[in-house]
C-alpha cells in the first residue's frame, strides 16, 4: 500500500558541478558523434560557452548529485518490480560544463491503478543554475507492478 502521506515531501535539494569528463562519458554511452557534445572547440564554434548538457542528461546529473534509490526506500517500494513509466522535461535554458546545477525535488503524487496492481510514484524537480536561472522542470513517474 502506498503511504500517501508522503505526497508533498521534499526529497532533496542537491547541487552538482557539471564536469566535461562526465559529459564525454555520456556521449560515448549513447553513441553521440556530434563533436559539439565532446569537443570544446566545436562547442565554442557552435556558439556555446562550453560543452552542452544534453536534453536528458539532467536526470543523470540529479542521480549523481543525490541518492536516486532513497525515494524507493522511503516509499517502501521494491526495486525489482519498478519500471519507469513517464518522464517529462520542460527546458527553460541550456546548461554547460562548469555550471553548478541545483535540483530541488519533491514527491508530487502517488496513486494506484487496476485495484492496486500498479502503484505509481511521481517526483518533480526544479533545476536552477549558479545564477538562480531556471534551467528545467522535470517530472518522473515510476510504476511498481504488484501482480
Amino acid at each position: 500500500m502506498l503511504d500517501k502521506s508522503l505526497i508533498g515531501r521534499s526529497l532533496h535539494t542537491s547541487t552538482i558541478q557539471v564536469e566535461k569528463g562526465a559529459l564525454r562519458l555520456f556521449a560515448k554511452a549513447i553513441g553521440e558523434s556530434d563533436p559539439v557534445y565532446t569537443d570544446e572547440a566545436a562547442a565554442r564554434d557552435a556558439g556555446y560557452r562550453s560543452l552542452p548538457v544534453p536534453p536528458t542528461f539532467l536526470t543523470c546529473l540529479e542521480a549523481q548529485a543525490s541518492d536516486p534509490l532513497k525515494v524507493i526506500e522511503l516509499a517502501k517500494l521494491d526495486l525489482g518490480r519498478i519500471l519507469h513509466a513517464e518522464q517529462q522535461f520542460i527546458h527553460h535554458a541550456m546548461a554547460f560544463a562548469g555550471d553548478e546545477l541545483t535540483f530541488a525535488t519533491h514527491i508530487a503524487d502517488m496513486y494506484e491503478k487496476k485495484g492496486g496492481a500498479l502503484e505509481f510514484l511521481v517526483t518533480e524537480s526544479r533545476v536552477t543554475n549558479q545564477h538562480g536561472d531556471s534551467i528545467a522542470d522535470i517530472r518522473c513517474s515510476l510504476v511498481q507492478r504488484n501482480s
Partner: protein
Amino acid sequence: MKELRFDELTVGDELPALPLSPITRTTLALYAGASGDHNPIHIDLDFARQAGMSDVFAHGMLSAAYLGRFLTGWVRQERIREIKLRFTGITHLQDAPLCSGRIAEKFEHAGEERVRIELKTTVRGNIDTIVGEAVLALK
C-alpha cells in the same frame, strides 16, 4: 546539420528515422556508469533473475537519450522546449532501437513559431518502447 525550418514543415511530415545499434551488456554497463543510474536490474543478471526477469534489460532513459540525440540531430538544442515521454515497452538485449518522429502540429506560443513532434522508439519492427512528444521553437 540542416536545421528544421518552420516554413518548410507540414503537419504529417516524417523525420528520417535514426537507427541505433543492438543493445549489448556493454551498452548497459556504460550507460549505468555514465548516467548514475546504478539500478542492478539493468546490469546484474543475478538480481534480474531474482526479480523474475529472464535477463537484464535496457534503461528506459537510454532510449530517451537516443531520442535526445535524434532531436539535436535536427535542431540546435536551445530550440527544444519540452520533451514528454511514456515508456510503453521493455528494450531487451540485442534489440536495435529505432527513433522516429512526425510533425503533429504547427502553432505559435510566447511569440515563437513552434512544432509539436510525435516521437517514438521502436524495437523488433513494430514494438513501441517509448511514445511521446517534443515541442520545438523554430525559425
